[in-house]
């Protein structure tokens, strides 16, 4: 029972990371209907930047904030420069551009930082909090940070004019333009936010899985699965899906098939959701007029 509880709680912690990355994916999907294959690698690169800053002597939370800010700007720039020209291009071109970004980020990270595994510090204490035996401080902290990010985003989208404008631009670009919203910039901001949230996910997961250029490929797969389980157009669904996938991954890994096939769980999950309920648990069903 104790082992089971431990599996569930540490599943919740990695689930929080999946949830953050899934949230980033959903943000971009909602406004552009594109699945960003490079989201994981962007997060990985941000994490390396944070690593650089921490090594240069910056305090952890300072580096954390600065990384988020840089990632935000980088996200905006990528949208403006690279994604915008293919906004209305066929799906294959868009997917190709995302894959190009993926390999570019991956190889630049490998080029600059080499492929050796690095440790990444955790801001949370070594000892488990409150004397509990089930969950480490970092895991608990990861859950806390995820929830904080979620609340901040909720407040931003729900209660600020800019958040409202972004939601409007995502939902109906033409009407938004008519009321004076600069839709293009809203998309760019969405990319910036997604990159920032991804950076958080990267920094949270790096202490667990260590820092290396390929660290995010598995995480990205789980984030995809999470986004799909929750419904790829629903941010809350994505977060919920993230936690579900995190727990499922741990339980299936521990009790059913062993850890070597963990990625296959994500594959099966993705295909099952797409087949059985493509809208996910909380997604909207769209009818298309032909």
């Amino acid at each position, binding site marked *: 029972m104790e082992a089971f509880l431990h599996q569930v709680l540490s599943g919740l912690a990695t689930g929080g990371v999946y949830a953050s990355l899934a949230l980033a994916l959903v943000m971009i999907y909602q406004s552009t*209907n*594109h*699945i960003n*294959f490079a989201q994981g690698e962007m997060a990985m690169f941000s994490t390396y930047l944070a690593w650089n800053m921490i090594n240069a002597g910056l305090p952890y939370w300072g580096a954390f904030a600065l990384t988020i800010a840089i990632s935000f700007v980088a996200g905006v720039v990528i949208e403006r420069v*690279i994604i915008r*020209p*293919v906004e209305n*291009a*066929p*799906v*294959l*071109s*868009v*997917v*190709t*551009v995302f*894959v*190009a*970004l*993926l*390999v*570019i980020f*991956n*190889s*630049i990270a*490998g*080029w600059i930082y080499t*492929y050796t595994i690095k440790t990444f510090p955790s801001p949370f204490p070594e000892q488990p909090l409150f004397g509990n035996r089930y969950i480490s401080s970092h895991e608990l902290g990861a859950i806390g940070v995820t929830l904080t990010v979620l609340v901040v985003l909720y407040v931003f989208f729900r209660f600020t004019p800019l958040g409202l404008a972004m939601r409007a631009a995502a939902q109906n670009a033409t009407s938004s333009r008519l009321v004076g919203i600069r839709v293009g910039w809203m998309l760019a901001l969405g990319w910036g936010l997604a990159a920032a949230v991804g950076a958080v996910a990267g920094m949270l997961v790096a202490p667990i899985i260590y820092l290396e250029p390929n660290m995010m*490929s*598995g995480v990205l*797969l789980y984030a*995809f*699965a999470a986004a799909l389980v929750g419904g790829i157009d629903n941010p809350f669904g994505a977060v919920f899906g993230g936690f579900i996938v995190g727990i499922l991954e741990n339980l299936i890994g521990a009790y059913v098939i*062993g850890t*070597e*096939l*963990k*990625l*296959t769980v*994500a*594959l099966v999950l*993705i*295909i099952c959701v*797409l*087949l059985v309920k*493509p809208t996910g648990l909380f997604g909207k069903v769209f009818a298309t007029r*032909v």
Partner: protein
Amino acid sequence: MNDALVTPPLSMTRYAGLSLRAWKMVGLVALVLGAIALPFTVSNYRVFQFNMVLVYAIVLLGLNILTGYNGQISLGHGAFYAIGAYVAAILMDRVGWPYWATIPVAGLACFVSGFLFGLPALRLRGHYLALATFALAVAMPQLLKYKHIEQWTGGVQGIVIIKPDPPFGWKITPDQWLYLFTLAILIVMFILGWNLLRGRIGRALIAIRDHPIAAEAMGVNSALYKSLTFGVSALFTGVAGALGAIVVQFVAPDSFTAGLSINFLVGIVVGGIASISGAVYGALFIQFVPNFADQISKAAPWAIYGVFLLLFVYLMPTGVAGFVRWVYQRLRLARGGTDKPAVAKPS
């Protein structure tokens, strides 16, 4: 109006006594003869490299049938390549089959697995299909390492295959023989692919890509065609995978990562989407460019891949094949032709 009547159609114009079609045939035959002569003029290592070009060309043709002509994006063809390679390796090493007999079996195994994967993929469009196939590619190495099939797959170690000798006591090196063997299969596969695409079926595939509903309305069984295309595409890839395993003489899970699938995507984008000749250009690119780039840094090939992908999407969306076609049409127009340039637009 009158001008059009006076000048004969361009296809009828004769150059040095031969029609354009005949010239094309001559060019093709010369190309094949050149390809046959190639392994006798370069070093053994180069023969191996060109052999891999042929293998990749078959993969890229298969992927292009699916992605270029039928519009189903696959980021997971490395997985089918792996299945083909493993089928060949297991049959040769564990069962003791001769190498040539493994190729149809590998093709068939991949056809079946491609068809089965294609069935659920029917419900997925665009990004979702890319996502599902990408997941397949990422999960493949793990599946191959799975311990309960280790007795066949050899687990992490993989399987070492013995290089086949040339038959009939021919006095050529095994590499040269394998090259010629691969070339023969490549020619067969290209003729099959060309025949498949140029007629009714090819038109149906393109119709499904460009407008699925209109295609259905015209009586195209979209579901059947799409899943069959997935199967056929996987078949091409599996045949190539088997050949690749025999050429490299080794299979191991870590040679079939998601990077391999991305390689193939790079190949069709650079070579030219929805073109048959593009497969060859793309194969040359993915075989030789990383080789040159490797000398700069271990990470350089992928950086260059990424940059080339972006450049091609923005500047040359029809790939090298499209560029060649464009140059060719310019030349024809410069010679006073009246035909309108018919540039095939990929979706």
